[in-house]
């Protein structure tokens, strides 16, 4: 199979594969899609896949078992989907494999106990009926959970490399850029710069060598959109980079990916290998044209600042990942001084569909200024956490309460956080605001790369702001002063406040530092690092003042501000708490009321978690 494909042979291959799939469908062949994302894999998904294969072989069932990319519903994984019936099984254990094969595949009986909503068994049992998926629209994740990411044929059968064909044979480089401009696609890495503009800048520069870089250094804590896209649909990224290469005149691409993502790296390596074998990559005259392109992987090494374009390029060059002032912008002077387009994974995942379906189709989705969809990693205090893709303009309420199923354990919603350490906490009053780049910026947060973390009333805003500052202080490269010193000063202030040593003057002090960092830092990391603190001061002032003036943390998170006490009405003297206390701070005899000595208590919370009668309270 080492023949280089031409346009004709690629079309013929696609037609053959599509026809084979159609025949299988008519012939009643069933498919079992097993989620092979990292979360499901590590939750027993690998063993499940093996068990299903074995059970199917034993039963001699006419079924094709495919390990796909992430289906998104990580909370209830491992997930198994049966096609064409579109039955959606959740929390599937390897022990359930025999039931799925024997009852469902062989006898056509749905295994009710494994359905998400058991009552749906009668009403209709389709995957799209699940509320988690009802409001989603999958463009970026169109192939995730549908195709086998380790097979290029599977990708080709699903309109794979059709965009590249169109770009090479039916469009001029200017035409490609115009299409991307018209689509209104903006960078999904966070800042939202129009992608077509970036390409245009690079295309306008004369140079002997240009580069396309895919930023897959997903560093935001609490975000894994790019990882799932790469794991589930690696060829879509390769195809998009090639299209970008054609548009800008670049012949070489680099994917800068976190070393912490072994599965995504493996799947990309397989994809690159397969594309090279087909002559789609790594050779001259791709598909019989004059187009040349190759892609290499470069590993990140755990530096958040490398999400910043200039720092990322320094890291690819093998140096310390420190940013440099812009301009010159990388599109003009980037990798080794050559024009370089840097696009984020999610941005690139949109390109091939925009080319095949057209800018008009794409720009019909979303709001006036923000087109298309956005992938979010919905996590934190929400019932259905997982990976979701929604049209721009959806409200937070729809995401958290309809898709996410609301807040678990009967708690109440306190805040949502977008944009990771560079974003802000969004209070309940904005739940009904449509989400797009502009509206999020207006309320002091950012779209960010897609982390969406939900907090409930047991989360303390001061503690969360402190958590993010710890992160940015740790990750600051130290090159410019506002970020290096400002971040540390903010963190120290927050620490004092969380320990009950805050002063009323701290409020103004923090405001001044935020302002200085925001205006004077060299790169995006420093400029946005104060956003969590600014959001805290803007929307959660009451909580901050309670910490400073009353020396109290109502959420019970700031250890130094809480005090445990035993409610004598509830205590029956079982001695459990006294036995788990590591500091011997609890006194009392059997069947007598116990008391905590606040002098000795180290506030570890062991007694609080141990007491079954809820006799231990936060005072």
């Amino acid at each position, binding site marked *: 199979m080492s023949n280089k494909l031409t346009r004709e042979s690629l079309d013929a291959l696609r037609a053959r594969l599509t026809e084979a799939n159609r025949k299988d469908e008519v012939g009643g062949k069933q498919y079992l899609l097993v989620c092979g994302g990292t979360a499901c894999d590590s939750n027993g998904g690998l063993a499940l896949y093996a068990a299903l294969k074995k059970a199917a072989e034993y039963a001699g069932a006419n079924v094709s078992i495919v390990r796909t990319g992430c289906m998104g519903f990580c909370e209830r994984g491992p997930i198994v989907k049966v096609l064409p019936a579109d039955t959606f099984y959740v929390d599937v254990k390897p022990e359930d494999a025999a039931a799925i094969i024997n009852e469902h595949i062989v006898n056509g009986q749905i295994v009710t106990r494994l359905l998400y909503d058991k009552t749906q068994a009668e009403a209709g049992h389709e995957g799209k009926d699940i509320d988690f998926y009802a409001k989603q629209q999958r463009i970026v994740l169109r192939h995730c959970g549908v195709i086998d990411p380790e097979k290029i044929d599977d990708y080709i059968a699903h309109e794979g490399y059709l965009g590249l064909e169109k770009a090479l044979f039916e469009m001029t480089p200017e035409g490609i850029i115009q299409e991307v401009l018209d689509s209104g696609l903006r960078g999904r890495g966070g800042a939202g710069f129009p992608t077509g503009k970036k390409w245009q800048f690079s295309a306008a520069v004369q140079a002997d060598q240009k580069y396309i870089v895919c930023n897959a250094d997903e560093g935001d*804590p609490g975000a894994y959109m790019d990882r799932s896209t790469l794991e589930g649909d690696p060829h879509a990224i390769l195809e998009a980079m090639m299209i970008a290469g054609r548009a800008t005149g670049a012949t070489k691409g680099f994917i800068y990916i976190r070393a912490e993502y072994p599965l995504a790296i493996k799947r990309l390596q397989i994809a690159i290998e397969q594309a090279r074998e087909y002559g789609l990559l790594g050779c001259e005259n791709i598909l019989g044209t004059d187009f040349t392109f190759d892609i290499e992987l470069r590993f990140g090494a755990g530096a958040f600042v490398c999400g910043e374009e200039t720092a990322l390029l320094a890291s690819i*060059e093998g140096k310390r990942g420190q940013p440099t002032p812009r301009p010159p912008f990388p599109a003009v002077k980037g990798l080794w001084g050559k024009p370089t387009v840097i696009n984020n994974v999610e941005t690139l995942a949109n390109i091939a569909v925009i080319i095949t379906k057209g800018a008009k189709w794409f720009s019909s989705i979303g709001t006036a200024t923000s087109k298309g969809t956005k992938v979010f990693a919905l996590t934190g205090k929400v019932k259905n956490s997982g990976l979701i893709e929604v049209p721009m303009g959806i409200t937070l309420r729809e995401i958290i309460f309809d898709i996410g199923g609301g807040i678990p354990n009967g708690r109440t919603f306190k805040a949502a956080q977008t944009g990771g350490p560079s974003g802000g906490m969004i209070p309940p009053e904005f739940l009904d605001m449509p989400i797009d780049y502009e509206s999020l910026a207006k309320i002091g947060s950012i779209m960010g790369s897609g982390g969406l973390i939900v907090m409930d009333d047991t989360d303390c805003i001061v503690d969360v702001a402190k958590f993010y500052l710890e992160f940015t202080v740790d990750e600051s490269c130290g090159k410019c002063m506002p970020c290096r010193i400002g971040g540390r000063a903010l963190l120290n202030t927050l620490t004092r406040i969380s320990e009950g040593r805050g002063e009323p003057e701290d409020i103004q002090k923090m405001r001044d530092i935020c302002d200085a960092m925001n205006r004077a830092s060299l790169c995006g990391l420093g400029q946005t690092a104060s956003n969590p603190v600014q959001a805290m001061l803007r929307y959660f002032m009451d909580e901050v003042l309670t910490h400073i003036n009353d020396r109290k943390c109502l959420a019970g998170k700031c250890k130094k501000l809480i005090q445990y006490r035993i409610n004598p009405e509830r205590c029956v003297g079982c001695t459990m708490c006294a036995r788990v206390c590591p500091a011997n701070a609890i006194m009392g005899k059997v069947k007598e009321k116990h008391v905590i000595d606040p002098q000795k208590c180290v506030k570890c919370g062991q007694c609080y978690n141990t007491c079954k009668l809820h006799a231990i309270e936060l005072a």
Partner: protein
Amino acid sequence: MSQETKTLTPELRAFIEEWKPRPGNLIMVLHRIQQTYGYMPREIVLELADLLEVPLAKIYGVITFYNFFKLKQPGRNLIQVCLGTACYLKGGDDIMKALEHELGVGVNTVTPDGEFSTEAVRCLGCCGLAPVIVINGEVFGKVTKAMLPGILDKFRNK
């Protein structure tokens, strides 16, 4: 723990030679070294500086800049505790404290028997399973303090 001086394995030497002419090779080579030894042994870095003809200071500048590269040898079993936002909110730091208690040593320190060491990592991308720990690449999700002794036993003296 073995204290003998380490030298570059032939495979590693070949890998470095292969990458030497390519621009931006340093980080990729360092990844390979850490993959082989689990950390960056000083002897090896000295050899590398000679081979690549790069000043030692520059190599150490890069190693110390990135969190991923380690200068000290980790325990036989490396425990990574995720402290990304989702895991933090769901008690990741309590898991870390419980682990320190269980192992009797703090974070980034090897236990006296050389079996375990713990490190904090930022987001492993399994937020749906928070809180998460990873031991030698194996992911454990929705971890509770009570589960820790059982999980550690799976790896101890194996």
